[in-house]
């Protein structure tokens, strides 16, 4: 790329440093600048590969650390019956909905992506997030995001009615289907096996048939 204008250099510093979390002024510049937009899309694509590269299989590593950890646990424990997960299961779905909305708002730029992600990149995100999802719609944004102490698949798919965020949350169970609306967004929390799926749009209510179709394609 040739020498860039000062505002483009500033935008590229931020994009190159943290492409998923751009300050508002930088994000606004990127939307109006084709070259910076291309740079952002390239960098997001590179980041998917970077994640896959860093996410080494551990088949060549020893397992001794876990053995020792178990020994500590046994020494300290008489009964290992209840888990923190069990505590979290009892939390109201509304709290989870709030955290989903807060997370999506932090990555507001995610709804501005339009290019379909390569299947290989989506597969890498799923591996990292410990989920399987055969999306019925094109995936235009994806990242294995830190969420409540875990990695979860944060996707945006292009549905016939608009962009929709799909978060696959294997570590948070919800007991029943819960609708919510916050900050101009409509959402659904849905049970999916031992975990849950969060759907979020800015385009009105989510059709039941669409939600059911998505959940049916999620496996942990």
């Amino acid at each position: 790329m040739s020498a860039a204008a000062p505002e483009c250099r500033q935008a590229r510093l931020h994009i190159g440093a943290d492409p998923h979390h751009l300050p508002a002024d930088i994000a606004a510049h990127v939307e109006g600048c084709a070259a910076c937009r291309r740079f952002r899309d390239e960098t997001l694509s590179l980041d998917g590969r970077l994640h896959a590269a860093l996410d080494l299989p551990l088949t060549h590593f020893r397992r001794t650390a876990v053995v020792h950890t178990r020994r500590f646990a046994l020494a300290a424990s008489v009964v290992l019956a209840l888990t923190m997960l069990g505590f979290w299961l009892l939390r109201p779905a509304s709290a989870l909905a709030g955290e989903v909305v807060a997370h999506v708002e932090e990555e507001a730029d995610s709804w501005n992506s339009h290019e379909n992600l390569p299947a290989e990149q989506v597969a890498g995100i799923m591996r990292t997030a410990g989920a399987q999802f055969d999306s019925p719609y094109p995936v235009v944004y994806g990242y294995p995001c830190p969420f409540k102490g875990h990695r979860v698949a944060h996707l945006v798919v292009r549905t016939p009615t608009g962009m929709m965020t799909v978060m696959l949350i294997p570590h948070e169970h919800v007991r029943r289907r819960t609708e919510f609306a916050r900050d101009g967004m409509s959402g659904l929390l849905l049970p999916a096996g031992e975990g849950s799926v969060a759907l979020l749009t800015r385009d009105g209510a989510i059709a039941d048939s669409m939600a059911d179709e998505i959940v049916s394609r999620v496996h942990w």
Partner: protein
Amino acid sequence: MNAASRGTTVAGAFTRLLEMLRPDLLRFAYWLARDRQVAEDVVQETLIRAWKSRDELKDPAAARPWLFTIVRREHARLFERKRLPTVDVDEVEALGDPALATDDAALLDLRRAIMQLPDEYREPLVLQVLGGLSTAEIGVELKLTQAAVLTRLFRARNRLRTIYGLEPVEDVE
């Protein structure tokens, strides 16, 4: 529930938390040390230290950055204590480590390129992409200003762009 039962429950939950995060701790330690055995030793020490200090972790959601910090400290401590030589990644041995192996040739090239990044670029990149730390958290962790963190992350990615088949962009000051 009495105090003993509560303590047992918390201990069990903490153990499960360590088990869940151990794979990423091992990966982080490996990218830090670029040596499998050192990484395994570092994680072993990290788990012991984390277990002893578990009362310091008030919020389970903060476990990841907390444990990554311990990995960094244990890595530094190990090198200090054993006076280990730093790994020279120009050596064929490190780049031929089976831990990096994959059927995807382009991914292997990227892993090797990450191995060859200078520490000052590789470490913040791994903390961000693998650890999920924000740039502010990385600044605290590495004792760097926010601007310095942004510059290092930018340069790390800029070096890796060519491996990914992209043209590098103008450096930032």
